């Protein structure tokens, strides 16, 4: 007798394609975090110093702080629409593993927010005096870091669903958990900018990524169920 329930991985893939499709119908939503990232990064040459050497020294930190803030901003719409129209509730009641469904949702969210951020980052790095040769390194490190951020952030987003001024609270909750990502990520980016090998912090970052996408959906699923009660 075949199991009529869709296998979890297929369900997750269906969620990913649904979220991607819905997002492309409203592309303005995706522009906001990106625009925020660009603007925050631009603030630094204006407020600190336009001198290239100084900017290059602070570039890794600036890129990562801006990326973190943009990612926090983007987490706002991870669950918002689906919570409002009842889809999230359907997911929880569907009999499918909510963990896998949320894994799919968060992965889709990263494709829509973190990935574009990591593609934009080398460009912003260039405005901060970073040579384009370091572009690949910046892209890879920001891509990995934003992936971990999306997953860890999903826990916070689930916990603050429907809380008034939840966005601020979300940032406060996520920041302590995001600090290791920030530290490893900016260290890796710094080494990449200097042209040195950035394997060591990358491995640490990668292990954080693996930990977060295996464990975070579990916690997020628990948090979503609590929020929907």
């Amino acid at each position, binding site marked *: 007798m075949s199991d009529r329930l869709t296998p979890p991985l297929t369900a997750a893939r269906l969620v990913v394609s649904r979220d991607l499709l819905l997002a492309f119908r409203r592309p303005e939503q995706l522009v906001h975090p990106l625009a925020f990232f660009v603007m925050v990064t631009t603030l630094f040459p204006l407020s600190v110093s336009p001198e290239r050497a100084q900017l290059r020294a602070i570039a890794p930190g600036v890129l990562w702080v801006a990326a973190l803030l943009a990612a926090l901003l983007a987490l706002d719409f991870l669950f918002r629409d689906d919570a409002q129209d009842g889809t999230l509730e359907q997911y929880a009641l569907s009999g499918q593993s909510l963990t896998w469904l949320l894994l799919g949702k968060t992965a889709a969210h990263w494709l829509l927010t973190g990935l574009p951020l990591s593609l934009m980052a080398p460009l912003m790095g260039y405005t901060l005096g970073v040579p384009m040769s370091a572009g690949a390194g910046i892209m890879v490190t920001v891509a990995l870091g934003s992936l971990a951020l999306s997953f860890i952030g999903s826990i916070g987003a689930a916990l603050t669903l429907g809380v008034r001024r939840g966005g601020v*609270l979300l940032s*406060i*909750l996520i920041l302590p*958990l995001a*600090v290791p990502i920030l530290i490893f990520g900016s260290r890796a980016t710094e080494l990449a900018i200097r042209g040195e090998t950035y394997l060591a912090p990358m491995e640490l970052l990668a292990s954080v990524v693996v930990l977060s996408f295996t464990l975070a959906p579990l*916690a997020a699923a628990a948090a979503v169920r609590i929020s929907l009660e």
Partner: protein
Amino acid sequence: MTWTWFHRLGSPPYIYRLAGILTPWFGWLAGVLLVGALYDGLVIAPPDYQQGDGFRIMYVHVPTAWLSLMIYTWMAVAAAVGLIWRIKVAHAVAAACAPIGASFTAVALLTGMLFGKPMWGTYWVWDPRLTSELLLLFLYLGYMGLRSSFDDLQRADRASAVLAIVGVVNVPIVHFSVVWWNSLHQGSSLSLTGKDTIATPMLIPLLLSMLGFTLYFVAVLLVRLRGEVLRRERAASWVAEVVAT
């Protein structure tokens, strides 16, 4: 079976009464130990060869840092018990732990800074242990902030429980940070074997202090727990008998 004591602990009136009985015992014992540790640490213990009298700050810094970690662990365990077995009293324990833990984390950071300046020349350095301890403070504050953002107590309990459990990963990071990374913070001063053992006359007040602070924490927790239980069980009939006295 032996589960009956576990179930009894989950009963609010039982816990309320038990906590009330135990509090003075823990409180007075803690008081005696802390006064003894204070006298021993400040007067009896000899000055350190390298650090002179400054090392006496350890007698407040180490126990408060220990408290900051231990309290978070208890908070996370209680939160997990409350979440998994849906025991209200466990959630009350977690809620009661948080403010105590947060305040002693702040004290640990401050006393650490006051030790760091004369000994290492700086109030602060962004090394793994200090940074992760600071993050621990943020986790406590985030926990308390999340709790207060819900009007529904049950949802507050369960959501903050998830946060507490997720954040517990920081506790081993703080503890093992001096092992995993080279840092300014000195390594373990409490190893019982090996060359880094601390001299006995200096060790005794530290142990007294740690035990004293731990018992003190239990006493304060029991008082808070009674308050939390009363708040949650307002409508229950046993409350009327208890508060009429």
